[in-house]
């Protein structure tokens, strides 16, 4: 009788340990699966959710490489106002290779890319290359004082980053024409015939940017 009690008690103990072990293993497995899922979801969220854009690549060094349906299309003409109040149209740059760089003052990766762009613009300008910076900072269009202050902030930020090319305001106004870019920086490289020959989404390397500039100039691969 006593042996039987010991047996039952032992069995109960084993069952209890099994409950804890099975529960723990299941929880750990689910947690692992959730982490894997989060990793899978992360990249498309930032790099691949841009409507009209193709598959974004990983953050392993080739983030800017992408296949965009915008590539191969004629770049849509637009007219925007620059930070000095001057009207600027893409059509003004007919016959030149142009990089449209969509950025914002609140975008930390843009602050890394912009000084590279300033250098590249200086280097390739004599060959017929121009950059148009297009700011996506919010603007209070109905409040003249605020608009003036916001414009001054954008101009100051661009100046601090060494920008020596036109910085245009209100990128939202032309967003749809360029596939509603959802992340910044985003660039479109337009060749001398007005065709988009390359696009980058997210921070890429200075070498990648230079290769795309060469493509736009018709001297790259």
């Amino acid at each position: 009788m006593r042996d039987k009690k010991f047996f039952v008690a032992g069995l109960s103990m084993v069952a209890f340990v099994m409950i804890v072990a099975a529960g723990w293993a299941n929880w750990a497995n689910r947690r692992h699966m959730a982490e894997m899922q989060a990793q899978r979801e992360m990249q498309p969220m930032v790099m691949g959710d841009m409507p009209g854009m193709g598959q974004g690549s990983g953050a392993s060094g080739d983030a800017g490489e992408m296949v965009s349906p915008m590539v191969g299309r004629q770049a849509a003409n637009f007219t925007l106002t620059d930070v000095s109040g001057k009207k600027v149209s893409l059509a003004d740059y007919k016959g030149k290779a142009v990089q449209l760089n969509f950025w914002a003052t609140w975008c930390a990766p843009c602050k890394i890319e912009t000084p590279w762009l300033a250098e590249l613009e200086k280097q390739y300008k004599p060959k017929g290359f121009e950059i148009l910076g297009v700011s996506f900072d919010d603007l209070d269009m109905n409040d003249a004082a605020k608009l003036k202050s916001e414009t001054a902030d954008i101009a100051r930020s661009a100046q601090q980053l060494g920008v020596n090319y036109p910085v245009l305001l209100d990128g939202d106004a032309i967003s749809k024409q360029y596939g509603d870019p959802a992340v910044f920086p985003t660039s479109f490289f337009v060749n001398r015939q007005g065709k988009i020959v390359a696009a980058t989404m997210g921070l890429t390397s200075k070498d990648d940017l230079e290769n795309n500039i060469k493509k736009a100039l018709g001297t790259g691969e």
Partner: protein
Amino acid sequence: MSVWVSAMLALALAAGQQNPFANFLNDAGKKSDAKPDEAVRYLYPEQVSVPAGKLTPVELHFEVKSGLHINSHAPKTKDLIPTTITLPTDAGLKLSGVEFPAGKDFLLPVAGAPGGGDHLSVYTGDFTVRGMMTAARGEHLVQAKLRYQACDNRACMPPHTIPVVLTVTAQ
């Protein structure tokens, strides 16, 4: 005793099929209305019971999606957009002394950029906003808003606002 052992074994089998913390996870994170593509989601609480008319601490829990960061409430530079929370005015409910956690120091890991750019103050993973709540007797539907601006190491998304909805019962 044998009945008890059978019950234990049945439980053990069930435990293998179900997460023992499933209820906790459901309450904490899966009943949110957040869209799957949102960088930040409000986790909990969905319901709070407080003593009527008495100043009561409240904690709002959020989660930043893995691999992303958002600026803290106090970014290091003026041009970066801070994380903020706004509450609708409700005659019967007041939230005061809102405290955001301190941000983590973060430097973009970018090769070829001297210094990797600016140091940032960010939130990643879970973070909690604390405040003191006073509510008049009754039930209050709080519809607050959290505004943030999210990035990963290579790209940023425009600032975005998510709803923070909870029911406060003051007794």
